[in-house]
């Protein structure tokens, strides 16, 4: 039945979850942290926390980028392949130029440029040429994956120790991975203050109305895709530091987990409602689910099913929590 046809329900009990659509995810996050600590007493040690963070970081970054596309009621199914493409471009340039400081600068710049261009291509296809987002980004994703295989057919490439040691190290006593995450958070906080952000949410809420109000709808959607490309690029570069090499398939699973993380974080796939902070939390929850299952020493053959069920339950729970809010907006 359509929403209008259901009788008005008392709303009082829902106010809290409406104001904080990812409240459930916070609860799940705390719960998972508790379970993880019980199973792995070293969980709270700073070194373990940092190593967890560095393994969650690529997914977290991609989830932040995906948030903006989804807020505009679009979707990016190519985001994982952009990660792969950027990853192999940067690793190959750094490797082929002998790992000099110049090669590192060049590799990182080329990687970032590739990510931004890929996002721009997606945005232009979807917003200017008016292609359907799901099919379009699937198709561009196939192209990006092909290009990644062209740049580097097999995982490999050698990155100079200085690079990955710098990545594993820190600045001002704070690990690099934490800086990257803080950078992502800073970006999110900054964007939230921009006129673009409100235009994006308006576009996601009702594109026709946004257009009639005079908002530059196409430019806003393209910008969202470029932001997604940017975050995918950063994730690709982070993976160069993490694995010290390039892999044309490294981002394959990131597309779907980014969407899961965004939904877990209370962002509605229908656009308009949500936040990057929720997506960060969603990505952490996904990562912690993996951790808990690993440390619970569950028999190997059960792991996939349990993981699938937890994620499905969390997704439906998150959606139901966020729903009251999405319905009203």
């Amino acid at each position: 039945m359509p929403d209008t046809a259901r009788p008005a329900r008392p709303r009082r009990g829902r106010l809290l979850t409406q104001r904080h659509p990812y409240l459930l995810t916070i609860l799940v996050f705390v719960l998972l942290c508790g379970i993880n600590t019980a199973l792995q007493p070293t969980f709270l040690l700073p070194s373990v926390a940092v190593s967890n963070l560095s393994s969650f970081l690529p997914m977290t970054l991609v989830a932040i980028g995906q948030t903006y596309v989804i807020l505009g009621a679009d979707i990016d199914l190519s985001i994982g392949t952009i990660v792969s493409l950027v990853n192999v471009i940067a690793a190959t340039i750094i490797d082929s130029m002998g790992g000099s400081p110049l090669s590192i600068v060049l590799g990182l710049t080329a990687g970032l440029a590739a990510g931004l261009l890929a996002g721009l291509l997606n945005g232009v296809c979807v917003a200017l040429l008016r292609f359907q987002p799901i099919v379009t980004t699937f198709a561009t994703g196939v192209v990006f994956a092909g290009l990644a295989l062209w740049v580097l057919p097999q995982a490999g490439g050698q990155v100079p120790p200085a690079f990955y040691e710098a990545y594993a190290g820190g600045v001002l006593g704070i690990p690099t991975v934490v800086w990257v995450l803080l950078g992502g958070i800073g970006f999110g906080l900054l964007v939230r203050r921009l006129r673009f952000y409100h235009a994006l949410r308006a576009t996601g809420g009702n594109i026709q109305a946004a257009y009639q109000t005079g908002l530059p709808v196409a430019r806003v959607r393209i910008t969202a895709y470029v932001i997604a490309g940017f975050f995918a690029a950063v994730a690709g570069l982070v993976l160069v530091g993490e694995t010290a090499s390039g892999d044309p398939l490294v981002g394959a699973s990131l597309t779907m987990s980014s969407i899961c993380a965004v939904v877990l974080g209370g962002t509605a796939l229908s656009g308009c409602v949500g936040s990057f902070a929720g997506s960060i939390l969603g990505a952490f929850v996904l990562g912690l689910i993996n951790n808990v299952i690993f440390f619970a020493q569950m028999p190997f053959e059960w792991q996939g099913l349990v993981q699938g069920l937890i994620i499905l339950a969390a997704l439906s729970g998150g959606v139901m929590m966020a729903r009251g809010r999405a319905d009203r907006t």
Partner: protein
Amino acid sequence: MQSLVTLLKRPLAVALLAILVLLAAGELLSPGFASWRQIVSMVTIAGLLGVVAAGQNLVILSGHEGIDLSVGGIVSFGAFLAGNLMQQTDARILPAVLAVMVITFAIGLANGLGVTVLRVPPLVMTLGMFGVVKGGLVLLTRGIPSGRAAPLLQAAVIRPLLLGLPGIVFIWAALGLALTLMLRRTTFGLSLYAIGTNERTAAVAGVPVLRTRALAFGLSGLLAGLTGILLLGYTGNVFIGAGDGYALPSVIAVVIGGTSLAGGAGSYVGTMAGAVFLVVLQSILTTLSIPEFGRQVIYGLTLLALMLIYGRQRRLRG
């Protein structure tokens, strides 16, 4: 001239024309590409994609951002289950097929209930279900492939029946006929178009919106299970993730066939043409001995070019 332009705007015509162009190009580049034997083998493979895409088509027609990304996992699951239940024994085919259909229908219905009762967006629900089905498959197989097709099933699927065409092509054609009749002549089919076009008016008109949509998901699961059985018959035995890659191509086949992702408009005949087109495109790229990366790039660019022709959305008006 006018009528030619309008014809070219019809997705089915575009898909058929594109198939002919590809066949001609293939024949030119590699003589023998468009030989009857080659065409038969391409249509056979398209049959597998076409049956999954049938379920996908129903879900997409039902609107409400309908999409079923769990079908790939269900194909793998169906193939595994069928192989283990029939154990190369002809007498066990019927119970095995029935069991697979009941179970995969139940999985699809679970998707449908999640989407309608819990109101989880289809993309999320079916993506989550994909994880669950994959996990269940690992639990059952313990990572070791098992199960083989019964000889009769293999014969029914791949042995040439008429004009060199194997059984699966006739099964597919029968399904196409049945589905087209169902969509055009039955209450369920018309309800599907109604809820896909405008859910509220359909509800006001007395269409059971939730039941219709849940059933579409159930049938999508069932048809994916059927694909698993056919895949088992086609290959004899299947590796564990054999069907995983079917999800997105099935969506693409539906879209190329002219069904709107917004729901409410489209036909299964178009989807069948879309499935054939995808397979012909894939095999032309394989035949040309282009390296893997080139194949992928051309495949993606062709899809984009097709979107340019008719996959465009309405212009915003002030």
